[in-house]
């Protein structure tokens, strides 16, 4: 591609956006400069708080009212959008630049047909007749590879899948052939197989139409899949700009190196099989929802069907699957947050599957769970100390002893014991996840269920929390059941893996074997879809 000769679609020169008083820093982004050439995909990559989304909003003229772009210029095909009037910005949006968002369900209007939402763009910006508009909508829907456009044009967003919704968003964004497409984490909310298709689509459309794409992501796998050039941002500043090869293979700054080495490798390390006593064994575990309804004609949903999983002491077993595969249902059954429909859950020698709450309580301490969202798993009204000692005190430990245990655990998870009387909002996401781990450990469990424990965290924090989980597993000879959708994480932490699809375990085996020779076609599809699988991330790449 010849980017030097053509003038850029988008040029950001020395842009600074200030934050309101009382924020943790003065500028959301400060003095950033980069450009997007026609037909180029520029990935802006950074962790949360790096200012990447603010940059996108500034380009679209969608900055929140408290934020002000006070320095620099944003040139869209040579025109400074920071000085454009509201009316001019409205004209530019849709025709010259367009944006797609992370969550296609909330970005689409639920009471309008999907075709109507694409047609709306045409209605606002063109003089096409209704018949012509419909033709254009059908045409663009074919271009984004939506099956049966004639049928889908008249359906509502809830009637189609997440991937199809994102295709609709892309269709609406591209229908007027804008020069610039801004994609703000467009695949983060999607399953990995869907993500692969959407990334492919964006690449294909962009090549065919010569659109410049500003692609915002936190995922280096995605960067490796789509980027031509990469901008790395940290705390509102551009750390490094370079071609994909330069950034991924020869990163110059320490920060980029740290980020890339934090991405777990898809190559599982060698592991010795664990032979400890069996801590958890499920037998034919099933959970069915619905079925009874009025007059016994309700729809039956088999969330989990005949799941057999065994976890030994000191072993980490992963359950891998996409959303709706039933992996969380299995975890919640084992933690007995819900009662399974049938089957057995043996914790030690006891089958807890159908115990009533009263007789279940003594067994609760053996199984602890770490949740996905560290912002919601701690009661915001209680100090973290109160959260940690709650369990031990329930089981009769004196408060003073429980506090001592909590202090030891805080040190163990890498936090100051003096922070016990702070509230959750005073901690960052990674720190909260450490507190949640301390709370689980306070019960001295045999089995720790980690339900997507790192998927809400930034990649650098993710690596630390994974290391902490591994440390406590060894130290306490914990059995760990690790629920994840992320193959990279699974490859690094799991001794064995069970792959779930639509409530059924389709394949199960030692991690290295599974990654080397997946037997089931769904497992193969998952591996195929893993973004950046040829890029070779992780410690190996950084060395």
């Amino acid at each position, binding site marked *: 591609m010849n980017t030097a000769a053509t003038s850029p679609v988008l040029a950001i020169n020395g842009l600074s956006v200030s934050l309101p008083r*009382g*924020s*943790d820093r003065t500028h959301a982004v400060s003095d950033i400069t980069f450009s997007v050439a026609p037909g180029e995909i520029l990935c802006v990559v950074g*962790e*949360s*708080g790096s200012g990447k989304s603010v940059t996108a909003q500034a380009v679209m003229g969608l900055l929140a009212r408290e934020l002000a772009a006070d320095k620099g210029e944003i040139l869209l095909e040579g025109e400074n959008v920071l000085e454009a009037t509201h009316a001019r910005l409205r004209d530019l949006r849709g025709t010259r630049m367009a944006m797609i968002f992370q969550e296609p369900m909330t970005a689409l209007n639920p009471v309008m047909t999907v075709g109507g939402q694409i047609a709306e763009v045409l209605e606002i910006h063109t003089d096409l007749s209704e018949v012509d508009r419909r033709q254009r909508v059908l045409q663009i829907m074919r271009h984004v590879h939506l099956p049966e456009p004639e049928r889908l044009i008249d359906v509502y967003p809830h009637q189609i899948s997440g991937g199809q919704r994102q295709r609709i968003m892309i269709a609406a964004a591209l229908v007027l052939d804008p020069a610039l497409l801004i994609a703000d984490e467009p695949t983060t909310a999607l399953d990995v197989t869907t993500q692969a298709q959407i990334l492919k689509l964006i690449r294909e459309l962009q090549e065919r139409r010569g659109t410049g794409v500003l692609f915002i992501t936190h995922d280096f796998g995605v960067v490796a899949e789509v980027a031509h050039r990469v901008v790395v941002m*940290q*705390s509102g500043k551009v750390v490094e700009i370079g071609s994909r090869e330069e950034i991924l293979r020869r990163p110059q700054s320490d920060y980029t190196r740290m980020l890339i080495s934090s991405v777990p490798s898809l190559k599982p390390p060698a592991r010795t099989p664990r032979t400890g006593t069996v801590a958890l064994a499920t037998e034919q575990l099933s959970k069915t929802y619905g079925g009874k309804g009025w007059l016994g004609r309700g729809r039956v949903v088999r969330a989990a069907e005949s799941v057999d999983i065994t976890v030994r002491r000191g072993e980490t077993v992963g359950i891998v699957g996409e959303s709706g595969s039933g992996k969380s249902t299995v975890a919640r059954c084992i*933690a007995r*947050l819900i009662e399974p429909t049938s089957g057995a859950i043996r914790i030690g020698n006891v089958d807890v599957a159908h115990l009533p*709450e009263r007789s279940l*309580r*003594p067994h*609760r*301490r053996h*199984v*602890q*769970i770490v*949740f*996905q*969202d560290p912002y*919601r*798993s*701690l*009661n*915001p*009204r*209680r100090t973290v100390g109160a*959260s940690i000692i*709650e*369990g031990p005190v*329930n*089981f009769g430990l004196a408060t003073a002893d429980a506090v001592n245990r909590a202090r030891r655990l805080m040190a*163990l*998870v*890498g*936090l100051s014991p003096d922070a016990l009387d702070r509230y959750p*909002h*005073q*901690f*960052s*996401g*990674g*720190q909260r996840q450490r507190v*949640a781990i301390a*709370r689980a450990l*306070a*019960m001295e469990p045999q089995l720790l269920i980690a339900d997507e424990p790192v998927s809400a965290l*930034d990649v*650098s*924090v993710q690596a*630390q929390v994974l*290391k*902490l989980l591994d*440390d406590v597993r060894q130290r306490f000879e914990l059995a760990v059941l690790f629920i994840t959708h992320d193959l990279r994480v699974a490859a690094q932490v799991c001794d064995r893996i069970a792959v779930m699809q639509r409530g059924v375990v389709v394949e199960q085996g030692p991690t290295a074997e599974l990654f080397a020779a997946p037997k089931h076609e769904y497992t193969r599809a998952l591996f195929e879809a893993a973004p950046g699988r040829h890029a070779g991330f992780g410690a190996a790449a950084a060395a």
Partner: protein
Amino acid sequence: MSIEALPADLAETAPAARKPSTWGIVVRNPSVIIGASIVIFLALIGLFAPLLGTIDPSEINPVFRNKKPGVERTIRADDGTERQFVHRFGTDTLGRDVYSRVVYGARVSLIIGITVAIISVSFGLVIGLVSGYIRWLDGIIMRFMDGLMSIPAILLAMGVVSLSRAGLVAVVVAIVIPDIPRVVRLVRAIVLSIREEPYVEAAITVGTPTPTLLVRHVLPNTIAPLIVQGTFICASAILIEAILSFLGIGIPPETPTWGNIMAEGRSLFRIYPHNIFYPGFCLAFAVLAINMLGDGLRDTLDPRFAKRV
């Protein structure tokens, strides 16, 4: 172990400045300030009614029937001394002083409003918590509540009052019953969303007994919306009491309440509008103030209405 939090991790820490105390926001809201001031003002009037230049509000004086505001009269006390008394708001058909009756009427209205709010919120809270958390009871309780809600509140209140002797207690009970289902629905909805929160599930997995769980983790989330709901109930209870009294089935007519005074004045209201005007004005003023207080509290306490800062 060498797990040190990286600077990036620490930078994420929420700044302390972003969390001013809720109470601090509440007391700065203009609706709250105005509404609360008026309510306190009315409460003080009710409390110090005997000191505000009033006479016995149920003293009948046939000579001074139906006098317009501003009429003077000589009152002879038991020890023989005489003094001039001005009927500021005039007198009613039995010659009772309307000013004294309106001032004393504030007592009944506020007592009814506040007791009804406290009682219905307390009952509604307990029933709502049980209904939201204990699933098998939910259907039974909610169908019963639906039944209660399907009867018009005034009709239900009239029924309850006519079952017993008219009086303060009967009126309070009559207003509380139709209000409980509204509180139950509110609390149940909150419980249903909070029980799905991971921190509640975490409390279950560490073996927290259900009553403790409800009080410790679920209940605090209901407080703010209930305070708001309480003020609205208080306002509507004052109105319903006035309606019941106006219909002659509330507090016995010798006790001054705003509704009673208006009921008295109704027959002659074309000639002597003051009998309805003064209590009516106080009633509207009180309800407006309480609703303003409630609106202000809702804006500040209820996250769904909170303005983004």
